């Protein structure tokens, strides 16, 4: 019995020991209990936070049931995105086709909810049973005079990452639809923040303090009309590059909008994300405002972090998250509170991401791509991690083995981005690592 499957050996690298080029960005191995979901999931998580759109899943019930109100993406207005709509195909419709039901379902819901646009996700079997979803979307679009956008997301057609691209293509259909064409000065689109626990609002506040106009937020607290005029922004800021880079590239090509990759996790990356914008606009006033903002925030933050750092110094962390950008930022954020990263991995990282992780980590760190519970538990044990940072599916692995856990997932309730997020992060790590409960989880007779 082997913990590491032969066909996965090249997706695991120990810095300083292994010399090979890490493999990544490939389909999960059948039978390996991958923590990834599927193409549908990728498209759904990205589009989900568009709050004034109707999201309807065309297919049997599971995919809709599993993604009902699944992300903590907050809205400052409409809550339509939190409802789960599906054609809930039954056997008869699988045999005779689901087009009629789809037409009726979408038309009725548009009448009831008056959304600004509708996204119609096709799951695994829709293509196989021959439904012409595109034609129906066009028909409803004409009849109701709103955009009804097909999202072709059969789970098997690639990986979760391919689903990101499907979502970006869907969003791209809205971009540029407003009649405005003049580029707005000092303006940006925020791409790839999903407003989990209100994180986007922290960022918006920082940029607005610097005198930057935010044209659209894609997709956190997203609005269809904002997306339609997002081509008037002067710059695209792309976080979570895995999910939104396609859209940024598309907008560069079509509207000549440059983009910058940023991350808002940790002091370093957050500050860089602010300075980059100010430097881009070559606006001395903006640069001044940014440096005042950064200085004020850091001056307040460092002393607040100090007591946590004192207690956490030397503790070992394992990171396993969806997006690689997040993993990379976390390595730096952990260092800021004195912690070492002994394991780092992601579901969807690419070659460059893993090279960067390797560069940032100390020798002996285990780097993982598309890992599974068996591997994670093995390395966590070997490396004697004190805390695992991950999502819902990683949580019980940590807890069962008696180590701390920090939720860095889609349903988190604490903002972890921005300066406020850094202190929240330190608090959460501290609360888990320092909890007295671990005294009981060591093997011991009563």
């Amino acid at each position: 019995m082997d913990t590491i499957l032969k066909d996965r050996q090249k997706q695991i690298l120990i810095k300083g020991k292994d010399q090979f080029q890490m493999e990544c960005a490939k389909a999960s191995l059948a039978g390996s209990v991958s923590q990834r979901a599927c193409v549908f999931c990728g498209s759904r998580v990205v589009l989900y936070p568009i709050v004034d759109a109707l999201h309807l899943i065309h297919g049997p019930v599971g995919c809709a049931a599993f993604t009902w109100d699944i992300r903590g993406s907050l809205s400052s207005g409409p809550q339509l995105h939190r409802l789960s709509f599906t054609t809930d195909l039954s056997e008869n419709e699988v045999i005779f086709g689901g087009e009629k039901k789809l037409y009726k379902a979408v038309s009725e819901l548009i009448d009831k909810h008056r959304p600004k646009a509708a996204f119609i996700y096709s799951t695994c079997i829709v293509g196989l049973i021959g439904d012409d979803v595109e034609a129906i979307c066009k028909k409803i679009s004409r009849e109701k005079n709103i955009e009804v956008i097909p999202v072709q997301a059969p789970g098997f057609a690639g990986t979760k990452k391919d689903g990101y691209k499907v979502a970006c293509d869907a969003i791209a259909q809205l971009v540029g639809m407003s009649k405005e064409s003049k580029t707005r000065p000092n303006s940006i689109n925020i791409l790839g923040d999903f407003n989990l626990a209100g994180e986007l609002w922290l960022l918006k506040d920082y940029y607005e303090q610097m005198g930057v106009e935010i044209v659209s937020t894609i997709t956190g607290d997203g609005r269809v009309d904002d997306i339609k005029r997002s081509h008037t922004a002067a710059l695209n800021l792309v976080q979570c590059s895995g999910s939104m880079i396609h859209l940024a590239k598309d907008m560069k090509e079509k509207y000549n909008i440059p983009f910058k990759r940023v991350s808002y996790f940790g002091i370093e990356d957050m500050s860089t994300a602010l300075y980059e914008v100010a430097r881009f606009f070559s606006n001395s006033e903006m640069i001044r405002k940014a440096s005042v903002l950064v200085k004020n925030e850091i001056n307040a933050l460092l002393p607040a972090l100090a007591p946590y750092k004192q207690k956490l110094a030397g503790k070992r962390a394992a990171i396993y998250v969806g997006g690689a950008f997040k993993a990379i930022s976390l390595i730096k954020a952990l260092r800021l509170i004195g912690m070492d990263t002994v394991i780092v991995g992601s579901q969807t990282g690419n070659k460059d991401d893993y090279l960067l992780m390797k560069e940032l980590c100390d020798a002996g760190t285990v780097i993982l791509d598309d890992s599974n519970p068996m591997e994670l538990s093995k390395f966590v044990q070997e490396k004697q991690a004190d805390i695992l940072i991950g999502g819902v599916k990683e949580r019980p692995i940590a807890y069962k083995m008696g180590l701390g856990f920090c939720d860095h997932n889609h349903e988190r309730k604490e903002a972890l981005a921005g300066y406020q997020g850094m202190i929240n992060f330190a608090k959460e790590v501290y609360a888990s690592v320092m909890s007295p409960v671990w005294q009981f989880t060591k093997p011991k007779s009563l």
Partner: protein
Amino acid sequence: MNTTVSNQRTKTYAATRNACKICAPLGASVVFKGVRNCVPLIHGSQGCSTYIRRYMISHYKEPMDIASTNFTEEAAIFGGERNFDTAVRNIIEQYNPESIAVASTCLSETIGDDMEKIIRQFKARHAGESLPDIFFASTPSYKGTHMDGFHAATLSLVKHFASSGEPTNKINVFPGFVSPQDIRNLKTILQDFGLEATFITDYDETMDNPSWYTYKNLPEGGTSIAQLQSAGSAMASVELGKTLAKQQEETAGTYLNHQFGIPKISLGLPIGIHESDAFFKALESLSGKESPAKYIAERGRLVDAYVDGHKYNFGKKAVVYGEEDLVIGLVSFLEEIGLDVVLCVSGGKSGQMKRILKEDIQIKSHTEILDDTDFEEMAERCREIRPDILIGNSKGYYISRELNIPLVRVGFPIHDRMGAQRVQHLAYIGTQSLFDKITNALIEKKQNESPVGYKYM
């Protein structure tokens, strides 16, 4: 009164809006997780298994290793056999399980993968090797709900494993979709009657393991293969769930009855005094023993509690929702304590719920019954009815929040609270727990809403 109860209804909307059900492979996964040293394998896209794992982890708070054959486009066109082969070999390599339980999906069923054949051919290709037992349940999500997947998986297990043998005094128990704590409680009860029971399946431990320290590739506990085999030589089967009893299609209990002549005793979920009495009476006749004093006392305390709390419950309007058999069980209990069940809701579509509630439970004539429905329809009815309390899984929280009424969380899923694994529903002890929760929720509401607050009830 018209005696024929129509089971046909039309939903207001063509779409399902906030489904009050989940898909069939999830139900199958719950059952398969109750088999000892077994790895469930979902034959479909990677997302099927990952979503199911996530959904179950949020409820059970346990590691939930469920493998996937991870369909690619190629597999969707040419069939998933190659992926199945790779998956099984990798599962053996990583987990070395005693069995691999395969659940099909809408995808694999739509492309027409013949699982029996695929498994047979796998075994033929690996003849002579020591392989885990591989068995399969057909669970396309376009057919029924998670409960249909649950029962299909249960049936697949007995069909695959049960064999004839020297008759034993064992009892097969098909508890239905209940909590690990419920199974634990039922086990104790059967033990106290001196009955040796095989729970099919027994996810008491597997879904509620103690703290581990070292990671286990497979959780402890579960029904063993030997136990499953012995299901064919048991003295009787006890199958819980009233819709199951009336189901046209074969159930695990009817299969064992037809195949091996094992008597089947069909009972409702033992919630409330009437149904618990029926359950204990059945155990008395199976064991030839009277109910142990412990349970007479439990029943007595429950009656005592009913009396102590009766005023707080009487006439309060309750909405009950969830799986059909759970709803039926809960309603039977709530009718005993004077709650006015105004609305019963389920996403299930056995077509039996209405009839059973009217004929077996004899609910009040004004009780509305909505099956094959969703949460939005329930929300719309609730806005009109203005109930005092909701009783069901955590997905109804948003309705209770909107209406500012308490929600007592029962069943599955409970994603927003601790202790979902340990919610007790069954027998006198489980009813006692439900009674306290429901009554206290109503008392708390009244207390919170009182202008002065008070220290005595």
